[in-house]
């Protein structure tokens, strides 16, 4: 399995534009809220702009976060099925989340300025809710 990964295809026209690598801080935020299983994270990512069609991306992201020691996981015994991994945030993860949020906040301020300057000559209608696009 030494072949390079396929490049991520460009976003379809009209897709939401989310920051690059946005999945990473999103996962840290969800785990800051409370420890969770993979399936729960998949569900809770939807309002943040991620669809449920790519659980592999979530799996790989969780593995990377765990290897970077930002997240840890433990087995949770199940009486009804196989044991599952329960993910929780580490202190290093909490610190990285805070740094990401400060960076996103600065980006948000620039975007607010950009939109405000545009709306000086074009009135924008409220954004319609779109189905989540595939982003990372």
């Amino acid at each position: 399995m030494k072949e390079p990964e396929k490049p991520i295809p460009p976003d379809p026209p009209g897709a939401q534009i989310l920051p690059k690598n946005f999945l990473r801080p999103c996962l840290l935020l969800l785990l800051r809220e409370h420890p969770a299983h993979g399936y729960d994270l998949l569900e809770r990512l939807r309002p943040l702009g991620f669809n449920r069609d790519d659980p592999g991306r979530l799996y790989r992201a969780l593995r990377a976060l765990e290897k970077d020691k930002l997240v840890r996981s433990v087995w949770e015994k199940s009486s009804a099925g196989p044991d599952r991994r329960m993910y929780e945030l580490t202190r290093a993860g909490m610190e990285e989340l805070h740094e990401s949020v400060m960076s996103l906040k600065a980006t948000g301020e620039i975007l607010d300025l950009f939109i405000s300057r545009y709306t000086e000559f074009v009135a924008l209608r409220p954004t319609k809710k779109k189905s989540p696009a595939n982003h990372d």
Partner: protein
Amino acid sequence: MDELEVIRVRDEVLQAMYWMHSEAISTMPTAKELSQFLAVPDTVLVPFLERFVEDGLLEGESTSFYWLSPDGMEAGKRTFADEMADLTRPTHGECDADCWCHDSPEAAADCLHERTGKAHST
């Protein structure tokens, strides 16, 4: 097939399939689903999957669907835990040898209880 590569891929595949199974994402993925999940081309992955079927770690249906055998299930769970073992020890709190939680069984129980919400420091 390089045997070291076989071992590396075996662990990756079994861990991923165990995770998919335990999260009820898929108990019987196709080679294509697995290749998308692991972000590798299916042409690269299929020979490994067939090898793992021969080794009794996977069971398959004519190179279409694959599922974990009982041995594969056990190996997937175990290697997943082994790989992250340094992150999941010690068992209660990230504490030193002289932590208060070693004072008594009650203190150890309190430590475990706290750990579900927050880790304590010494």
